[in-house]
């Protein structure tokens, strides 16, 4: 008896979202099969990989990273250099200086930084806020205004601040937004419904279902993404069909494994390698669960994950 394949092809599909300026935009979403199951049916758009930079500069304690950004000192130079990383589909700027628990620079200044990076970037742009609902509510509309015409993707709008961010970014300035909820399928759905009630149509927002690094409660994230994809495809749940973006870098580079020094843990080896492997492992697992885009910090991780995607899809 021969093997009878039983492909799972769904009548519904993930919504497509494009961002980036006209002529240079990238598109993700669109799949009508489970994540990476290109053997069941062709997948419209492969998952995307973004390279993350911070407005606070580059961690030059990491030798490989320092070498990659050698000579790039201003934000514009760093942004331009990041865009040359092999495999990077988009640039993601984290506006760290605006964090109220940190430097807390005014939103106008942060928006100007976003503009500076954007003007220097050859790739479509994602802007990551500061993960503080009040500051993001003020900051992201300013960024949206500063980046008119760039069709940038702004992360993120949460339940506490989605109204202002959604209306300003999408309706007033034609940008895209990420709807962020805390690793829970129902919260994600609820936020999407609320956003759609503001008159924001599919194609203008993506989902950000939370973060976790491998080993740190990652099962909650992966199971949530898997359940969201299953509901979107098999239940045709319209409110769970936007593509999923997962910023991996932040968590991957802040867990103990990527933070402690080689002096303290000599058997663990160089810190940079640990951070890269943590990024790679987490990103690959996110893609397996169903993320349609991941954001990584190290050019070496970006290259590996881009290659993995190219091999699979």
């Amino acid at each position: 008896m021969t093997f009878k394949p039983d492909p799972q092809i769904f009548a519904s599909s993930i919504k497509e979202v494009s961002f980036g300026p006209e002529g240079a935009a990238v598109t993700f979403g669109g799949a009508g099969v489970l994540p990476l199951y290109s053997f069941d049916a062709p997948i419209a758009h492969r998952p995307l990989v973004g390279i993350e930079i911070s407005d606070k500069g580059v961690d030059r304690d990491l030798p490989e990273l320092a070498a990659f950004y050698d000579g790039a000192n201003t934000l514009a130079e760093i942004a331009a250099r990041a865009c040359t990383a092999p495999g990077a589909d988009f640039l993601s700027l984290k506006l760290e200086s605006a964090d109220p628990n940190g430097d807390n620079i005014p939103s106008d200044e942060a928006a100007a930084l976003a503009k500076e990076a954007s003007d220097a970037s050859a790739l479509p742009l994602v802007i990551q806020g500061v993960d503080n609902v009040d500051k993001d509510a003020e900051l992201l509309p300013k960024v949206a205004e500063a980046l008119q015409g760039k069709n940038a993707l702004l992360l993120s709008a949460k339940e506490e601040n989605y109204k202002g961010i959604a209306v300003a970014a999408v309706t007033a300035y034609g940008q895209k937004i990420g709807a962020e909820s805390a690793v829970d399928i129902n919260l994600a759905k609820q936020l999407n419904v609320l956003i759609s009630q503001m008159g924001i149509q599919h194609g203008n927002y993506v989902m950000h279902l939370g973060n976790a690094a491998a080993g740190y409660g990652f099962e909650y994230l992966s199971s949530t993404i898997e359940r969201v994809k299953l509901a979107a495809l098999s239940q045709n749940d319209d409110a769970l069909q936007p593509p999923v973006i997962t910023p991996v870098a932040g968590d991957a580079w802040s867990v103990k494994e990527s933070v402690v020094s080689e002096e303290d843990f000599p058997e663990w080896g160089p810190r940079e390698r640990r951070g890269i492997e943590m990024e790679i492992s987490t990103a690959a697992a996110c893609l397996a669960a169903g993320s349609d885009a991941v954001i990584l910090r190290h050019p070496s991780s970006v290259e590996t994950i881009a290659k993995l995607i190219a091999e699979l899809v």
Partner: protein
Amino acid sequence: MALKGIDIFKLTPKTNCKECGQPTCMAFGMKVAQGTAQIEQCPHMSEEALAKLGEATAPPMKSFKIGPADAELSLGGETVLFRHDKTFVSKTLFAVSADEAGADAVMAEAAKIDYERIGERMRVDIIHLEYAGDTAAYVEAAKKSAASGKAVILSVSDEGAAREALSAIKDARPVLNGANPDNREAFAALAKEFGVSLGVSADSLDALHETVQALEKDGVKDIILDVGTASIKSAFANAVQIRRAAIKSGDHSFGYPSLVNVAKLAPGDAGMQTALASLFILKYGSIVVMEGMSYAQALPLFGLRQNIYTDPQKPMTVETGNYPLNGADENSVCAVTVDFALTYFIVSGEIERSGIPVNLIIPDAGGYSVLTAWSAGKFSAGSIAAFIKEADIESKVKNRNLLIPGKVAVLKGELEENLPGWNIIVSPGEATSLVKFLKELDAA
């Protein structure tokens, strides 16, 4: 469809004889259905009932053990495709690969990875020995590998070499990986003769399926399906389709554990091997063979595996106790939170980031998050106070300031009553505000 407890109860003698160790036949039936009791424990089941049960409870995927008796490893037995449906059963095993020449070096490297993470010992599970043509050296390498105490996979499709290696280390219960449509009969005989599990590969899923069926006819019981090394794409497609056929379509010929050789899929590229290993932890790799494993790779991979192979209904917990952070001593402030591992990691991470010494006290809170534990009554003023007394914190720490999570501010008053002499301080509701809060508290 698994049998419900009540259906199993119907087949019991209904005498409550207690010989199975359960007080009632009902309890026994429920536990068999749950998988915490075995049907064989009932001495009074009729043949007819056993046959009926055996058929209905036959798992969609075979499970068996490999490796030496004192360190045996489980494979297979999965019943679902997604962990949110039910806990995955046999965690992905990691093998490092070498040929007869490189075995010593690889074994020495692999031995370095050995540490504990949340109660689980993390080490390379298996030595994967690739036959390169020198039979005598191969047999020697096999012996050394077996002596290392780890399980061994003999990756060899040469019958003669296979026989010699098997003869040398059969007591270590190695896996013989090397059967294919051409050598099937001979390898089936070897597997039976030495009582080992047999890895099989073929050029296509069709051919693999047919070969497995032939092996089953040959009488081979424990089979491992090698997903092949033609390309990353085909290895992934095969791993998914094999598992899906077994679980979703009930195709018993594909109801066996899988083996993915990422060493051959991405030779010389450690990063890509990490990526592939991570992919196959989620998507159906039972054994993942790598070229080697550094700590940098082991840390995320073992962490990821530990996460994925958890009970979706039951959260991971950390041990109860007092965790002195940032060099906390008896004069440092105390803080309390729940034993849910995720909460612990987040809270301890933020405290570490603040640099302020804190005694982080973790009582038994049933492994729930703060609010859930509180609403389930497992994180109450009474239980916190009881733990502080029981763990004798008061004689170990002189500081009488206790920080409680902002989400359970409601406990403040009651805690003050239950813990006379303590000053209860309500912390922020979100861990992200902890650094700032602790610094301000420290400055005040």
